[in-house]
């Protein structure tokens, strides 16, 4: 069971990294507009097709 002393801190470090990533994204405004980007994705694809 002493593996707990290793695994738990490791798991918490992973969580910490995830939280940092989320905060970074929120701060950069990634969640400000959740409607337009999904529409834009389709457009970029069709433009590439045209370039081919």
């Amino acid at each position, binding site marked *: 069971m002493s593996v707990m002393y290793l695994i738990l801190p490791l798991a918490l470090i992973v969580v910490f990294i995830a939280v940092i990533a989320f905060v970074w994204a929120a701060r950069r405004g990634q969640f400000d507009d959740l409607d*337009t980007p999904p529409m834009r994705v389709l457009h970029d694809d069709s433009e590439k097709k045209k370039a081919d």
Partner: protein
Amino acid sequence: MNLATDAHGTPAPGIVPCAHCGLEVPAGLIEDGAERQFCCTGCRTAYAILHEHGLGQYYAFGEKRDAPVEPTGKKYEEFDHEAFQSLYVKPLKGGLLTTELYLEGVHCSSCVWLVERVPLLLSGVVRAELDVRRARAHLEWDPSAVTLSAIAQQLDVLGYPPHPYRGVAAEEMRRKEDRAMLMRIGISGALAGNIMLLALAQYAGWFSGIEAEYERYFRIISLALTAPSLFGPGWLFFQGALASVRTRRLHIDLPIAIALLAGFTRGAINTVTGSGPIYFDAVGTLVFLLLSGRFLQNRGQRAAADAAELLGSLAPTAARVQDEQGERRVPVEALLPGMVMSVRAGETFAADGDVTEGKSAADCSLLTGEPRPEPLDVGTRVYAGTVNLTGPLLVKVTQAGEMSRLGALLRRMEESAKRRAPVVQLANRIAGWFVGVVLVLAAVTYLYGLRNDPARALDNAIALLVVTCPCALGLATPLAITVGIGRAAKTGILIKGGDAIEALNHPGLLLLDKTGTVTEGRVRLVRWEGSEAAKPLVAALERGSSHPIAVAVQQAWPVVALLEAQDVIQTIGGGIEGTVAGQRVVVGAPTFVARKTGAEEHAPDVRIDAFAEEGLTPVWVAVDGHIVARAGFGDPLRADARASIDRLRTLGWRVALLSGDHPAVVRATAERLGIDLADAVGGASPEEKLRRVEEARVRGTVVMVGDGVNDAAAIAAATVGVGVHGGAEASMSAADVYLSRPGLAPLVELVEGARRTMLVIRNNILFSIAYNLLGASLALFGILDPLIAAVLMPMSSLSVVYSSWRGRTFETTVARRAAVAASSGIPPLEPAR
């Protein structure tokens, strides 16, 4: 590509679709042999631009415009003016400029595609990005290569008329708040999840045994995870509680903060001493759940406020000024007293002033609520916001901007909105006695424990504090209101605050503006007595005029045979005359027609009074010197007005009319609506409306429903202000609720929906209190297992979430929406717009 299938794959048989917007091309505009057909020049131009620049793949997208392109044809010179640029344009690094414009008519992914590509065709435009939900375009450009007016014209040609967006600063602040709240939720959610995992291990150990060493280890790590959650994201509740204590206004945050702090402190002490329960899983989950509830509520209210605010950006932004250098357009912000504005027919006055040249009529309904035009002559005072109807005018500016009558009215509106006492939410009222009861119970538990089991007395008291944390109570209101506001928005009712929902549950006085609210707000041909043969003659005569009567005729008979009228003369305040098909036709006020036909000496026409009694404006028609027909024009009642008002009355509201229109007309309207004549007030100025609302507020709930600027101050002062479809921007920004569907039926839906929402809130609160009672009585006798507490708490929150979600508040079934669309012809406004 075959005939005009660009817009929609397969054209319906018999209908020729427009190659750009896909709507039917009117028979008169179909060009024989042309490869593509267009319903209007706007669509034709847009199509040409797209093809010229190789953007034809626009037509491959499934979604299409739902309206023809109608460019305003404006030049937008004012966008390049210093005064405009200093207000709305910000410099960027590298000499670039940036601004945000509100675009009319964006709604789908094709719009995103167009708006983000077409401006880039102009050299000098660096960036164009659209936020569809907020209908806002973010632009960056190089001022040495391109002007903002050129970009604006480009967008206008495509059918997205741009407007300066006035709320950038406020928006920036809200965006920061939103991001901060999102971070709090993210952090507290991650921590809560991990605390729960650790708690699971400990509960498992509680059943099957766990070595003391590991139990201690888990407890310490739980503590290390709970502290940042409580003092980081959870700090919000302590701030709320402190503010509540300081202002002596009870708030739900106070009992929440007490429970969180008590649970955490005791848990921390027990962790150090190594015995007794820790409450970390409860504390961590509470912080996360409560923050989420709050975030959802803010978001729902904001979406509704945003939608109304956008409509507010539609005010005129420019005026045409005449000076030594000739005529030029300047932004309204640059207008100064003494300048001379030239105002064409159909334009809105941008400032207060005196007419110095020209004759016309003004539509002052914005300020007075009176739909009938007022004559304008040299020396007449005109006001900002009113519309010049018939002829070009020169106006010397006397007051501009904030100093104008409109500006002063808006200022009063803001003041009364600030003075207004907020509605105390039910949950916060309950929080008051909740704190008292819980503290007394905790003390009783402690004293009772001291006598029987002193070792566990304190733990039992703390357990009671934690288990009675009003988590469900704190979620009860926000969740029910969020769901209610979201569903209301789907049916076209935009509710900007939860307060309105609570206030609408206390029936009181409901004041309705007349023009535009219970009536359609437009002059219409209501009655026609006499010769049918005269109709085409009148239609031909009125075709070229922009007078409200003429517009009403054009609407009444849009397709009456196309005769030509010659030598048309319009007399302001009189009527119109001309020669149609060789006959001399005179249409106008009875006295005017009598004078023209030489019938002046006859006895006064009795029909005039008969028309006036019904609130109709009489217009007589004479052909070759003989009166052949009598027409009555008026502002008809909305079809659903009577039924809606009756329904509101049965719900307990006293319905009254408060109008700026002539008292006689208001009385006639009241009679037809079954409203007590004592409750029908006419001739009320905006100031008097405000005074009446403020007086009535002393006696109870006042709901003010209106559409005009003349109602704005009263709307802001009322307990709940409601702006109706087609209203002026000021009334919308002042209103707590905006009805984006025409008619009074949405008003009834609002009141009924608010009642049902409140029912859900009450049920939620009952639920949560029942759970708290159960938990409290278990804790009181010291038989509350930590495990039972851990199950009880999320159970109460979940049942509140469930009941909020399935509560039938505002109806949104497909059938209901279809009925709405069919009856109004207007698609319900989706919240995403």
